[in-house]
């Protein structure tokens, strides 16, 4: 913070900056280690070790399977959210889409439809929800934070319209177990396995395709991206549709996993998803972040919570820990930048 430069500020946020060859590389090494997504992964390992030491049941297959299964929906939605946030947008309506999808599954099932018809239909509805968000953001140029606060109320409201105060249960066992059971021979529940597959796909898309590159460009300088011929609006629209679709799908899993369809399913998980994405080191101003960081972030939050719960740490303290983790997640790279700068200053 010794510098008062304005131009340097964004530069510092960016990549490690120009370095001399030779001695510079070792400095770069330190800078690299101080990158938040690397730190998150390290923290994750610490939690894992700590968990195994303090609680005998932590590392058991049963517990891990629970803990991972519990993360399922949040992790899935976080994939789409990561792409949105990298493109400097956000979707706060995901939890409501999840609720609406759950309500639809319930009411249609109650009306005698088969699950095979319900699932695709619900996913289409989710896509439409995303489309509405996307159109409002791209066609009218409204800020996504504002739009999705609105649709958050709208979609949740529609869930209540669909299902009211009813709670639908008793879904067929084979589907329910698909949402709960482990892949044979592993402690990994099916939804988590699905997540792994999708995460790999998302990582490749985000980091190695033109589409992914475009997201980073849009996120850091939308106008320049548009001038470079990137279809900014279309891409954003796609992202919102994707987000809605995944949220609806997560709603189906949620419903089957808990065996209960209610209009208030998943209330408030949007903040958990965003917290996970941010802890994973994605910059809320767009243009920066890695999917690996996000995955580590999701796991970190989930396992840490699990560990705290196993050690009888109360909800209050869990809340404080989550909050501190968030703050540390942005403070660390910042401090790292300062340290890096300090080291560089006495250069000849």
């Amino acid at each position, binding site marked *: 913070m010794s510098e008062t430069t304005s131009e340097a500020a964004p530069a510092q946020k960016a990549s490690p900056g120009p370095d001399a060859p030779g001695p510079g590389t070792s400095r770069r090494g330190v800078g690299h280690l101080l990158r938040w997504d690397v730190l998150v992964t390290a923290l994750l390992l610490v939690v894992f070790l700590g968990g195994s030491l303090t609680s005998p049941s932590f590392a058991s297959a049963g517990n891990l399977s629970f803990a991972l299964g519990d993360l399922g929906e949040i992790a899935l939605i976080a994939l789409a959210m990561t792409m949105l946030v990298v493109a400097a947008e956000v979707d706060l309506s995901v939890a409501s889409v999840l609720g609406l999808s759950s309500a639809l599954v319930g009411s249609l099932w109650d009306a005698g439809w088969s699950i095979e018809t319900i699932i695709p239909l619900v996913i289409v509805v989710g896509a439409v929800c995303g489309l509405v968000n996307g159109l409002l953001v791209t066609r009218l140029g409204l800020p996504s934070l504002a739009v999705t606060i609105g649709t958050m109320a709208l979609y949740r409201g529609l869930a209540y319209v669909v299902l009211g105060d009813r709670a639908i249960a008793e879904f067929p066992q084979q589907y329910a177990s698909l949402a*709960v059971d482990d892949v044979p021979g592993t402690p990994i529940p099916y939804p988590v396995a699905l997540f792994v597959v999708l995460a790999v796909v998302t990582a490749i898309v985000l980091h190695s395709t033109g589409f992914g590159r475009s997201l980073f460009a849009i996120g850091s300088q939308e106008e320049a991206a548009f001038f470079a011929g990137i279809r900014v609006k279309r891409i954003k629209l796609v992202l919102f549709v994707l987000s809605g679709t995944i949220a609806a799908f997560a709603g189906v899993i949620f419903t089957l996993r808990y*065996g209960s369809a209610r209009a208030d399913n998943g209330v*408030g998980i949007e903040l958990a998803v965003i917290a996970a994405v941010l802890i994973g080191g994605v910059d809320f101003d767009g243009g920066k972040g890695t999917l690996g960081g996000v995955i580590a972030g999701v796991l970190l939050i989930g396992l840490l919570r699990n560990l705290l719960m196993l050690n009888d740490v109360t909800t209050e303290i869990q809340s404080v820990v989550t909050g501190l983790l968030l703050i540390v997640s942005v403070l660390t790279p910042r401090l790292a930048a300062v340290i890096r700068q300090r080291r560089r200053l006495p250069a000849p």
Partner: protein
Amino acid sequence: GGTTKDSAASAPPAAAPASSAPAKADPNAPIKEGLKIAFLPKQINNPYETIVDKAGIEAAAEYKGEAKEVGPSDASASSQVSYINTLTQQGHDAILIAANDANAVCGPLQQARAKGIKIVAYDSDASKDCRDLFINQANSEEIGRSQVKLLADMIDHKGEIAILSATANATNQNTWIEFMKDELTKPEYKDMKLVKVAYGDDDDQKSFQETQGLLQAYPDLKGIISPTTVGISAGARYISGSKYKGKVVLTGLGTPNQMRQFVKDKTVQKFALWNPKDLGYLASYAAAALASGQITGAEGEVLKAGKLGERTIGKDGEIILGPPFTFDAANIDQFDF
């Protein structure tokens, strides 16, 4: 104390459906020492639940058990499920749960039972095949019907009435409301009309504003039933400070400490509740008795619940605390909870 007419009516003790309780009860087994039991309320920070759980934890001290309260800060089923999983991993003897969603908690509860953990639902039931016992604060039907009677007497069986509930999905509320509606179909209530069920989400401020809305939207409203402690106190507070005081009758389920002021200033004449401390106490003993093998949860077995005496297990593994008690200006000062 004493059994309710419901459980007394369906007495045949032997015919327990063996599905959930295969083991044989030994009524004379002593309560084991050092039992680990956990209370999982709908939500921590709900004062009512805190009273219940505290009493339950104190009861555990009587029988030398170890009890604790854990729970989420939001009243959602999914957060409760995480806690059930954790408690299962920790290896407790019994889990007591006030279910946020009767079905959503079912799977994990089944898994807990598979590990030999006894499950007691209290306050708000879980599906009956996922728990061993349900400690019902009062007979649901009785609560529903008596609330209507209470209100009807105060408004001469005439006029528009409304219900201010908790969340739209609250199972216990919805059961009571069903019985209220059924009661209202009886001929003696033909002049009473239920115009609206509003939801205050068990949030003080929301309930407060819902009451406002009700009174404005239905100028001819004569009475409100709020079968939730949060709702009735918020509603009473609004009415006591508005022009509707003395014109609209409010009743429901509330704690004496919350309502004392409004009974004294005549906003509210009568309301009902059971003793939440007794509920926690009874639930705690039920869990201990299950875990010690004194009972299995079969219909007709008798639970010895310390200072509360005995209760007989009714149909579907339900134990009823007792009839609700009606508070009014004459008796309210005798209670402190």
